[in-house]
Each structure stands twice: as C-alpha cells, then as structure tokens.
C-alpha cells in the first residue's frame, strides 16, 4: 500500500489534480468567511458594476452593509465574487454526486450484465434504449416533474452516463470472470454475491474510479450547458455553470461575468481530468488502456 501511495504522489498529474481540488474544496467550505455576502441577494442599485468597486449593499432583510465587489456585480445586482465562491459548493457537489450515482448504478448494472448471461441481453438492450432518449428531453422532463434543484440536476446528468459506465464494467467483468481465481471460487461453490464482491469488484475498482473522474468532470460541464439552455439550477443557487450561462448575454460588454467563474471552473475540471489520467496511469495501466 505504501508504495501505491508513493507511486500516486510521484505522478505529476495526480499532484496537480489533488492540489487544485483541495484548494477548491477549501474555498467551498470557507466561503462564508472570505468576505462574501448572500449570493442570492439582489440590490437594484448595483447592477453591472465593474470589478473592484466598493459600496453600500442593501440586503433583503433590510440591513445595509459596506461591501467591496471584488469581481463586480451581475445584471441582477448580485455580487459575482460571492456567487463564484458559493458556486464552488454546488458545482463540486454536482460533480461528485453525479459520479457517485452514475458509478453506482452503472457499476451494478455492468456487473450483473457481465456476470449473468440471461440478464445481459435484456440489460444491454435497455441501456441502448436509454441512450436513444434525447438527454435534453430527459433533463426537461425531470426538472419539470421534480423541480429544479440539485438532486434533479444530478439525476438528469447521471442517467445518460449510466449506459457508458455499464458498458465499461460489463466488458471488464466479462474478462474477469474467465480469470483462474474466479473459476476456482466457482468450483468451490462460493456464493455468487461473494464472488462479485470479493473477486470481481476490487479488480474493477481502478478503471471504475478513473471513469468516475471523467464523469465528474463532464458533469460539471454538462451542468453549465443545462444552464445555458435555461434548464439548470435556478439562479438563486449559484453554480459556476449557471453564472457563466447567465453572464453570456453580455460577453462582449462585460466578459468578467463569464471569465471569472471560468477561472474556477476550467482548472477544477482540468484537475479532475488530470487526476483521472494519473490514477489510470498508476493504478492499472494495462486494463485502462484496453477499455478506454
């Protein structure tokens, strides 16, 4: 184990990824104390102000506080700096939750499909069907039916990812079940659940984890696209994606609205991707290369 950790830490991508993510998590946790105000508070007197301005900000409950708008204000009169910092919370949660959900569901389906021939046919056809439904339709239907909140958005982004994860795990399991130790376990009449849990799953973990990082990265980006289409989280829940999507209307006039959240979003997604790359290179290079 010690050598694994050392190998991980030696890898440049892993170091970079972990460092950036740690920074973002810190920012997310400490946002209330980093000179921010309520990210949803709108003050109609401070619409589209430039970065660096200081002024009196009227909060919704009536109090007026002196505040510096480090990154300016948006077209609602909200402080961009506060929104970007608080946005890290939701963006990170969306990324991680989507990855966990997609991996969980996809992993389960993939293992079942790979191990049980009878289930395979049905499950894979079902996954094909799932891929045929336009993701946009699914997103709108979910958001319309369950309201636009973090849980809905996570589900809406995770579901289209499940077929791919299933495919990955299935092909892994198909190979793994031919391994000698699995054959041996079967010969010993070990219960299937135990085989899956103790033999198959640990060997599938590494590529699964790697895939998970890519799912997380793409989830953060997809959330931005959903906001672009007007389907994402409501604007009073700031995320990097929806700050950028809202601010794009005045891209030429006030690029800050898009560039400042991008300054946080791009490194984070980059870090997650690089972390995935590094994990893959270290944990299981041969497997990972074979299945992508």
């Amino acid at each position: 184990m010690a050598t694994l950790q050392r190998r991980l830490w030696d890898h440049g991508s892993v170091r970079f990824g972990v460092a950036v993510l740690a920074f973002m998590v810190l920012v997310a946790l400490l946002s209330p104390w980093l000179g921010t105000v309520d990210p949803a508070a709108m003050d109609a007197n401070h619409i589209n102000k430039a970065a660096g301005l200081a002024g009196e900000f009227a909060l919704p409950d009536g109090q007026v506080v002196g505040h510096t708008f480090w990154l300016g204000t948006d077209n609602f009169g909200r402080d961009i700096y506060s929104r970007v910092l608080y946005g890290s919370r939701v963006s990170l949660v969306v990324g991680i939750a989507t990855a966990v959900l997609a991996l969980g569901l996809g992993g389960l389906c993939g293992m079942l499909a790979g191990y049980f021939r009878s289930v395979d046919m049905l499950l894979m056809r079902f996954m094909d069907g799932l891929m045929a439904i336009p993701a946009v339709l699914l997103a709108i239907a979910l958001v319309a039916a369950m309201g636009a909140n973090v849980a809905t958005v996570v589900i809406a982004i995770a579901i289209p990812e499940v077929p791919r994860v299933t495919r990955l795990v299935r092909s892994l399991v198909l190979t793994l079940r031919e391994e000698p130790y699995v054959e041996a376990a079967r010969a010993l009449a070990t219960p299937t659940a135990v085989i899956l849990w103790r033999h198959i799953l640990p060997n599938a973990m590494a590529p699964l984890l790697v895939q998970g990082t890519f799912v997380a990265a793409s989830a953060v980006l997809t959330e931005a696209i959903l906001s672009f289409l007007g389907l994402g989280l409501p604007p009073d829940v700031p995320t990097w994606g929806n700050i950028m999507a809202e601010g794009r209307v005045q891209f030429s006039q006030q690029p800050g609205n898009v560039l400042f959240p991008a300054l946080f979003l791009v490194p984070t997604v980059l870090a997650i991707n690089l972390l995935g790359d590094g994990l893959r290179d270290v944990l299981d290079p041969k497997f990972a290369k074979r299945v992508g």
Partner: protein
Amino acid sequence: MRRGFLKTVVVGWVLAMLGATAGAQNTLPANKVFRFVPHANLAVLDPIWTTAYVTRNHAYMIYDTLFSEDAKGNIQPQMVQSFTTAKDGKTWTFKLRAGLEFHDGKPVTSEDVAASLKRWASRDAMGGILFGFIEKIDTPDANTFRFIMKEPCAIVLDALGKASSNVPFIMPARIAATPGTEQIKEHIGSGPFIFKADEFKPGSVAVYLRNPKYVSRKEAPSGLAGGRPVNFERVEWVIIRDPQTQFNALQAGEVDMVEQPSFEQYESLKKTAGVKVDDFSPAGYQFVMRFNHLHAPFNNVKVRQAAMLAVGQQAFINTQVGIPDLVRPCKSIYPCGSLLADESTSYFTGVANAAKARELLKEAGYDGTPIVMMRPTDLAAITKLPLVAKQQLEAAGFKVDLQQMDWASLVARRAKKEPPTQGGWNMFFTTWTAQDIGSPLTSAMLNAKGATGWFGWQDEPRIEDLKAKFARAHEGPEQKKIASAIQSLVFETAAFAPLGQYRNPTALRSNVNGMLQTAGVPVMWGLSKN
C-alpha cells in the same frame, strides 16, 4: 491506404471550393436585401389562430387592413376609400379602394372582407364585441360592404383599425373560410410583400419579396397608416436565438436589424461602430403581477391589496430592464402617455410600503399560507420579476413558495383552477405591449367573467358592465370617464398590479433609414439602406 483516402477528400474539397459556384444565388444589390432578426421564432403563420406578436408582425408584411392607426393614435382608412354612417348610426357603408389585388392576381372583393372579418371576430375579443352589435354584413357590390347594426356603436373604427393581436387582416374568402380554430394552409394576402412559401424554413428563415402590384396610398406613411413605400426587393427574417450571436451578427453586418436586443447590450450597442439604436414603439410595454382570485390567500381582497402595497415598481424595472432612460414607473393600469392613462389610483402608489402592507395583512387575518409564485426560467423578458417580488413580499410578511419551471410548464399550470397545493398557483407575472392594454376592450386582464375569464378568474360583473358601457360611449371625455371608473374598480378589487413601464429599443445598422414609429409593430416598409 488511409492516407490516400484522406488526400482524396482534402483535394476534392479544395477543388470544389475553387471551381464550383453552383446554385442560383440571388444577385441583388446589397441595399435591396434586408435581413431582420425577429424577437422570437416564427412558427405559426396564422394571425387569427394565434395572438403571438411575431405572427402578427409576419401578417403585417403580407396582408393589408381596412383601417390603420397613425402615429398620433388616430384611425385612418387603409384599404377603405371612403365610408359613411347613416344618421341613426345603424348603417355603416364602406367603399374599398380601386386596384386592390391579392398575390394570386385575384381582386380584393367585399366577399373577402366579410369572410375575413367573420373569422377574425370568431377569435378576437374586441371583434366579438363588434359583431355583437352587428345584425348583418352585406355586400351590395364587389367594392362595397355594409354593416347593419342593432344599435349605434362607437367602436367600429377602433375595432377595424385594431393594431395589435388579433388584427383584422383581409384574406381571400376561400382561405378565410377555414374555421378560426384551425390554422390556414395558404398565406396569400394583398399586402406590400409576398410570402415565399417555398423558401420558408421554420426555425431558420422566412423570405418575403416586394409585391410589385401593391397599390400604396398616396399619403406619407404615419404609424401604420398612410402609404407603404417598399425599398427592398427581398426581405429575409433570420431566426437567431442566442442574444450574443444576434449582437455579433449585427456588428458584422450579417443582419440589418435586430428587433429586440437584450437590455444588457444596450450600452454597447450605442457605442458600436456601424450600429445604432432606435425605437419603433415609444409607448413601450408594462409588466404586470396577477393574482389567482379563486384560492387562499388571494381570494381575500385585503390580502391582495396588501400585496399591492408591498410592491415597489422601481426595483422591478431596474432589475428586469436596468437602463434608466428606458424605464418609468407608471401607476395607471393604462400605459402612461396614452389617451386613457389616469393618475388617480387610490391607495396604490407603486412605491413599496412594507409597513402598511404588514398592517393590512394582519387586519386581513393572513395565516401564513405560502403563496405559490410561478417563475419561468427560460423566458428572459420576465424571468427576474418573481425574484424581486419574492424579496418585497417577504419583507411585508408574506410567505412565498417560489416555483421555478420552464414556460411550457408554467402556462400549463396557469390554466389549472385547482388549489395551489394540488397543482394550481397563486401568482404569476407577464408583460404586455401598450397597445394591448391601452383600451379596456382589448386588455385581457380586464376579462372579469369569473370562471370563463382570463387566468386569475376574477369575477367582477361591475367591470364587465363598465366595459359594455365603454363600447357604447362616445369617444373623448365620455370614454375616459368610464375608463377611469374601470381603473378605480381594478384597484378597489386589486385585480392585478402594474409593475412599471419600459421601452425596448431596436438595433439597426447605421445605414438603415426611415424607421417608422408604429403601434409596436416593426414594419419593413418605409425603410431603406444606403
């Protein structure tokens, strides 16, 4: 092997680019082609079937009307040459101008007029009111038609010259025979432009050609009335959904006019080279907050009045529009600057008074039932209003349950009469053009017929009575008095709250001249490019 294939593809492409100039592209001079970006996708082409503004604007291109509103708000004859009213006011005789022809070459006859008006009246509220007065329409000859009225009616010209949806456009009788509840399949009118149906790509582009046979009136154009001089051979309506792309396309000269640039771009537009800002609709628009009168807590008039006291117009228009010279608070339910605007609005000041609202809420016995407020996430024009309202209402002691949904879900939910907790609603927001709410007979919000009325279902027979009186009153002081009385009732019953007035200027290339100030309709006649 792969390399060979690639090479072939690339070489082929280069050759095709260098060699080919296939296809008959239009070789019209640049100043004879006009490209316009409408504010919404042109999907429906039937201006009677829908009230959508973009369809109305399309219809103004290819159809003509009997009367039109000029820049001063007066109704002038358009297709009509002359008209007379009998002494008892019960017969109106109209003569059509000579030489009016449809795009298929057939002349415009009184039969076509009668059929078109019938179809229009089957869908339009004001048309319905007009036809309520009409005993019958007869067509003594091809150029003449007559209204035989049951009683004298003051709104005949106002109705026939109605500028905004639904407009009584004149179509061939065979097309107008389509029931008002079905969409027409052909788009043939007698207007200054001809619709090129074969080049129409929904969601992408709509093409119009100049109608060389159009007989324009001799007067100078004024508003929607007068002559309609066309200076372009070809007009293309280019559908661009993304506001940033609209701006970029205008800047690059790929389009000549953007109907409704977003407010955030206003300052930039004024400073961009080659682009200028103008306004075809100085009267503008009004935001409105509507209550659901059927269910708690807004079934209690005092609670509604408390909400009206809690709202402050300045915050709404500043947040949603944000540009000081485009907005103005306006307490009246009629657009400020219009004929019927009225300063007497009893307790409603348009300035937030949270303290007074709280008192009234207590008096009303408000028990904390949350208000289900609907917010459209995908409609940029009004999406910020509910957020401001939430803040202001909560400051006054209301509990607000903000439901965010896309427009399609909102309009579906808006039609439901169930209680808010079972799929209904308490409050929504919308915007109207000045034309739509300028008269009690055209304003949908004054439909107080209860269960069959407009969303919100206010049941106030007194308003309906006053509207009927308005239709019979003489223009001028008599109508104004009735309009004021209606306004007082609106505030007394807290039917809805006006949230402020604003203009939405349009953006043009600097070389485009001659834009007319109309009743909120972007028209392509009168314009020219140099």
